[in-house]
Structure formats: structure tokens, C-alpha cells
């Protein structure tokens, strides 16, 4: 019965008998403790997904309750590091949603050409796949040399990976297909060197990129940008926190600056819906108009 066992583990949840009211108390106490001890504020994260990630960590540490996890991470910084990775890593891909990148090429680049100098912020860039993707698009448009890209994430460990620019070789076929569907004009393999099981991307792609830690929950804006990318990051926040982060993006964008969200994210539930206009009927590209 090997398969059901694997499936059982994959469920990442408490025992069926676990009281859900008590569970919520434990989770809120844990997040409060992490905030007060380490300064990381996960208190306004979307409950369904943070709950799932916490239980995965409970199982990986071979514990049996959220309270056990609380005792462990409050006393053991290394355990907190492991939990932080669970809570902040988002699984992404180069040119994720190829039609989005095609729209970025067709709709956004013409706007960017009108500026002598372009500043782009990748907020919550994780391991950097989308940073390299946009750098490739800008390079092919001849815009990379007059662009500065700020790629930020809460987690130093993933930023380290992003700086290294090494992605699994096993995914290059998928990424190549994405690149072509996104309207790429060269041979994708020009951009990387295969080494063992990794693909090392050309360091010249990030010649104008600064990777830096930034916490969307607690840190302020740090510049004015022409484009803010924040794709599939806000889905991990509750509505109230989404609103706060939208305020941060609104303040950080120049007038007519562009906000790029994930394909299933919207401004519909935020207070800033009326401040933007849709740039594309399908893709989540918005322009700040007021």
C-alpha cells in the first residue's frame, strides 16, 4: 500500500479529529510568536494556504501539533529558517503564462520606449525565474541597457538562488516552449550554459539588476517605478493585507506606471480598482491613471 501512504502525507493537514477552532487559536498564537521573536509578520497571510504550509512543516519535523511547532521554532532559529523557506517559496517558471509575456512585449514595451530611463520592481521575485524572463524580453527589445531592475523578496535564501541564476536543466524544454509561445525571437539556448544538471543563465542578463531583501508586509516603498511586477504573491495574503500592499504599489508607481499581476489575481477586491485601467483584455496588466 505504498501509494495511499504517499497520498496521505501529501494531504498536509491535521488528523481528522483535530478541533478546527483550537487549530485556529494555535496558528494565530504561532504567527504572533514568530512576529514578536523574529519580526516576520505572517499574521495577515491567507489562512487556507498558510495552514497547509504549517502542517507540512509539522509533518516534516515529525511533530504532531501546531503548538509543538511553536515550541520548536521559538527556541530554535534553524527550525525557523526551515519554516521561513516553506512559507515564502513560491513555485514558479520562466515565462509562466506565455501569453502574459507576449502582451508585455506587445503592449507594455511601447510605453517603456517613451522613457529615457526605466525602473522596474519585481516584488516577491522568489528564485528569480520571472526576473530573468523579463530581462530577456527587454534585452531583445534593446531596452535592457536603459533599465534598472529591482528584484526583492522577503527571503535571503531564495534571493541567493536568484542571484546565482542557475535553474534546473530538466525544465529547459518547458521553458523553451514557453519562450517561443511568449514571442521570443532568438534561440532560447543562447541565454544559458548547461552544466551538470543546471542551466547557468548569462550574468549579462542581470547587469542592471539589484537583488535585495524587502518585506512587503512591513517595509515601505523605496523608489518610483515605471513597472511593478507582483505575480502570484498576493494570493498568499488575506484581503486586508492585499489592500495595504496595493497602497504600497500605488505610491510606488509613476503616473501611467504599470502594475502586472498574476493571471488569477485582480484589483476587484481592493480600494484601488478605480485608479487603474486595463491595458489588455485578457492579461492582468493595469496602468495607473489617477
Amino acid at each position: 500500500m505504498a501509494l495511499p501512504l504517499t497520498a496521505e502525507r501529501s494531504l498536509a493537514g491535521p488528523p481528522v479529529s483535530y478541533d478546527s477552532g483550537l487549530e485556529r487559536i494555535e496558528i494565530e498564537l504561532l504567527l504572533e510568536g514568530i512576529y514578536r521573536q523574529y519580526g516576520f509578520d505572517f499574521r495577515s497571510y491567507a489562512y487556507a494556504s498558510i495552514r497547509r504550509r504549517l502542517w507540512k512543516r509539522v509533518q516534516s519535523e515529525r511533530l504532531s501539533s501546531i503548538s509543538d511547532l511553536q515550541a520548536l521554532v521559538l527556541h530554535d532559529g534553524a527550525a525557523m529558517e526551515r519554516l521561513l523557506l516553506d512559507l515564502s517559496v513560491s513555485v514558479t517558471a520562466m515565462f509562466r503564462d506565455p501569453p502574459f509575456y507576449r502582451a508585455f512585449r506587445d503592449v507594455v514595451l511601447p510605453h517603456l520606449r517613451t522613457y529615457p530611463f526605466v525602473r522596474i520592481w519585481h516584488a516577491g521575485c522568489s528564485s528569480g525565474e520571472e526576473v530573468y524572463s523579463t530581462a530577456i524580453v527587454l534585452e531583445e527589445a534593446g531596452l535592457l541597457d536603459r533599465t534598472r531592475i529591482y528584484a526583492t523578496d522577503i527571503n535571503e535564501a531564495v534571493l541567493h538562488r536568484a542571484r546565482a541564476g542557475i535553474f534546473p536543466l530538466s525544465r529547459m524544454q518547458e521553458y523553451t516552449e514557453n519562450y517561443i509561445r511568449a514571442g521570443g525571437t532568438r534561440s532560447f539556448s543562447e541565454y544559458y550554459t548547461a552544466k551538470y544538471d543546471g542551466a547557468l543563465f548569462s550574468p549579462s542578463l542581470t547587469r542592471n539588476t539589484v537583488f535585495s531583501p524587502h518585506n512587503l508586509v512591513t517595509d515601505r516603498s523605496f523608489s518610483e517605478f515605471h513597472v511593478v511586477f507582483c505575480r502570484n504573491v498576493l494570493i498568499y495574503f488575506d484581503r486586508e493585507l492585499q489592500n495595504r500592499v496595493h497602497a504600497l504599489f500605488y505610491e510606488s508607481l509613476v503616473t501611467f506606471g504599470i502594475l502586472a499581476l498574476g493571471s488569477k489575481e485582480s484589483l476587484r477586491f481592493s480600494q484601488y480598482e478605480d485608479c487603474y485601467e486595463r491595458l489588455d483584455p485578457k492579461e492582468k496588466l493595469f496602468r495607473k491613471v489617477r
Partner: protein
Amino acid sequence: MAYEIVVVGTSWGGLAAIRQLIGGLPPAFAVPIVVVQHRHKNSDHLLTSLLQDHTPLCVCDVEDKAPIVGGNIYVAPADYHLLVEHGQFSLSTEEAVLFSRPSIDVTFTSVADTYGPRAVGVILTGANGDGAQGLRRIFDRGGLAFVQRPDTAESATMPTAAIRAVPKARVLTIPEIAARLASLPVAVASRSATS
């Protein structure tokens, strides 16, 4: 027990099966239905429009934090896991589970843990074992478990795995499942709380 949500999982052969299931529901069906169908990550709105032709109920793509409203059929987006919180959806791009994103197990588990005995799980045709553990969880939390009769499924693997995990599930043909859903007691709140 009044029911507040129906969640349906399927993979191979799922389009025809879902069409048949929703085609058998009355136009006034008041419980929200959430459909998790394995499909290619780059497929987008096609499934929604293919289903809309077969029901007067509103078939919607799910966006993050969208409210869950009775009388709607929600389709889990490709390349995300679909979770629920009370009354709203929440999406995630965590890694695939059993090679699937959306994973039926992940959504069913989230529904089971959020709605407990007010949840209904339905497993239809499919070529792998995803959904079996999630259906088990719905059943263990006191919800209702339906499985398509394997001999009537285009691919019997998924229903068979679900029956193995939940031996007490109600094993029926799709028209019979639709008829049972149509006669479920409905929580009054499922409509008024969300409209």
C-alpha cells in the same frame, strides 16, 4: 444536515462526465459547485465555455479571493491549487501533488476541513488515483461521498481508487448522482450569506 458546497474531481474523460452531471441539475440548484479537472497548464477559459453550454447555472473561472456564491459552478484554474476559506476561494502555486496542479486531493481536503459535514464530494472518471484521499477526508469529516460507477466511467482508475479509499461511498451512475444532488437539503445561508 444542510449542505453548503459540492466539489467534483475528475481527469481523463472528465469533460463529458461533468457536462452530463451539471446537465442533470435543476436550474434553481442553490449549492455552489466546484469542479477540479486535471488539464494542461496552458489551457485557460476553454473548459468554462464548454461547460456553460450545458447548464443554465453560471459557470465561472475562479479568481483569487472571489466569494463562493450559491447557484454558480466554479472551475479550478489550470496551474494553481484551489483552496477554500469560509465563503471565499484562495489560490496557491505550491508544488504539484501527485504530478497534479490543481490537485483534487488538495481542494477536497481544504473543503473537508473548512465545511466538515456540510460538504459533498464527487469523484468521476479519471486515469489516476488523485482525489481518493481527499474524498476519504470529506467522508471522515462527516460529509457525503459520491463516486461514479466504475463500469460506467470512461476511465475506471479514479473511481476505483476512490471506492477503495472510501468503501462506504455511494457508488452510482452520473444521472443518479445528479438526481441525489438535486434533492439534497440545502443550507438557507448558502444563498443569502453570499448574495
